[in-house]
């Protein structure tokens, strides 16, 4: 079975500071990894994905994530946080042989304060 853990329910950062939202996964074989963001009163939006190749993936709104196979992690990062980044972030994983089911983590609420 595949699973995703987001160990922090909430992350607080000051505007302008770097941010990290943690994600670890468990899957048989090589994973496909994703980050989605849910802004208040809006649907989930795709941020970025890791399929293969370079371990550092760049996505929308200046976000990036690094795939670390040995640590089974896919942490989301941004060098300088904005207040408008405040939202709920979901990490997701799918094994390459898992059909079409995408397994999501429990979500991490990011609060960026001015």
């Amino acid at each position: 079975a595949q699973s995703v853990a987001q160990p922090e329910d909430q992350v607080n950062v000051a505007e302008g500071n770097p941010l990290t939202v943690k994600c670890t996964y468990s899957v048989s074989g090589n994973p496909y990894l994703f980050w989605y963001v849910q802004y208040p009163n809006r649907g989930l939006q795709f941020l970025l994905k890791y399929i293969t190749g370079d371990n550092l993936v760049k996505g929308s709104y200046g976000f990036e994530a690094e795939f670390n196979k040995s640590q089974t992690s896919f942490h989301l990062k941004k060098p300088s946080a904005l207040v408008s980044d405040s939202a709920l972030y979901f990490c997701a994983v799918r094994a390459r042989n898992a059909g079409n089911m995408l397994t999501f983590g429990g979500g991490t609420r990011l609060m960026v304060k001015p």
Partner: protein
Amino acid sequence: GAGVSQSPSNKVTEKGKDVELRCDPISGHTALYWYRQSLGQGLEFLIYFQGNSAPDKSGLPSDRFSAERTGGSVSTLTIQRTQQEDSAVYLCASSLAPLGTGAEKLFFGSGTQLSVL
């Protein structure tokens, strides 16, 4: 349409009643998914449709839950004899092609907030 549309946005029902939730995917998207988001929980996979293939129902929590997709477009999720634990946000998503083909991005609707009293 411009995005995935779900209706109603909110539904309040009494325990034991049946409810129907509707999803209108992005035009041309062949894949359609239903997920459930409970308070404080992640997204729970419910069911997946791809074209004319038999749906993947592996995530449906009980036989009270069913879904259909008519004409490869609009989908309806039906919950019979609703229970209080069914209260959640039900999210629909569509994608241009099945996962694993390179078109991995899911487009989500705003969801239906279901409250069972």
